[in-house]
């Protein structure tokens, strides 16, 4: 087994174990830290898929931004006494059955479908191609998403402001 293969399977196991820790752990702050590791594992998988720019953005935006925001949210909304309360509702059994059934269904679809695959060689970098596409073919969605970010910024500021 070549080294890259071993690293790939280690990364996959790391991602899945961290993600299940996020879901099954009872302490919210531990879940947030485990989410950090799961996102890190997904970034590693992106590198195996030759997506260097997406991996970098995943590290910057998800780990540096969203995860820190989530930890902020936990610390702002948790009383010390309520940390050890049960975090799951009564539908845990039903939820587990539905999630397991969903996973089996998706896995069956994946294994049964003859995916069309095209051979390609590894590019030297993806940044140039992504930049060209963003300012030519996807210019309108790019502008729309910047408007959406502006709206989200104003909305979040309005929502979290003290009512006067």
């Amino acid at each position: 087994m070549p080294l890259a293969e071993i690293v790939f399977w280690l990364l996959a196991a790391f991602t899945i174990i961290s993600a299940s820790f996020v879901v099954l752990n009872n302490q919210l702050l531990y879940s947030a830290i485990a989410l950090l590791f799961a996102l890190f594992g997904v970034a590693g998988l992106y590198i195996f898929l030759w997506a260097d720019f997406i991996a970098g953005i995943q590290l910057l935006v998800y780990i540096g931004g969203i995860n820190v925001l989530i930890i902020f949210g936990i610390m702002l909304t948790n009383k010390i006494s309520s940390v050890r309360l049960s975090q799951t509702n009564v539908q845990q059994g039903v939820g587990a059955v539905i999630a397991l059934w969903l996973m089996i269904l998706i896995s069956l679809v994946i294994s049964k479908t003859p995916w069309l695959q095209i051979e390609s060689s590894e590019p030297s970098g993806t940044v140039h191609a992504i930049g060209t596409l963003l300012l030519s073919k996807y210019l309108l969605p790019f502008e729309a998403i910047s408007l959406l970010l502006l709206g989200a910024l104003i909305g979040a500021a309005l929502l979290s402001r003290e009512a006067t």
Partner: protein
Amino acid sequence: MDQLNNYLYISAILFSLGTFAVMTRRNGIAVLMGVELILNAANLNFVAFSRFGGMNMDGHIFSLFVIVLAAAEAAVALAIVINIYNNLHTINVDDAAMMKE
């Protein structure tokens, strides 16, 4: 590592773990973490299909947009969660059901 199916299976497991968190967690922030897992599963699929479909860059653009949407969603959702906490002194999503009554 050179097999499309491996990535799809990993993404399927991440997706079902995320749906499990969304269905069973009581805490609003934990539900949000489940949504992040689901979005990551979708992103992984986009990038995997892009890599095995002849290195088509459109998949990368889509996953970039998904990341941007996730950031906007996290910011607004946390503002809402903090507002719910200020008004109800809990972020249990089962308790924030005044619209039903």
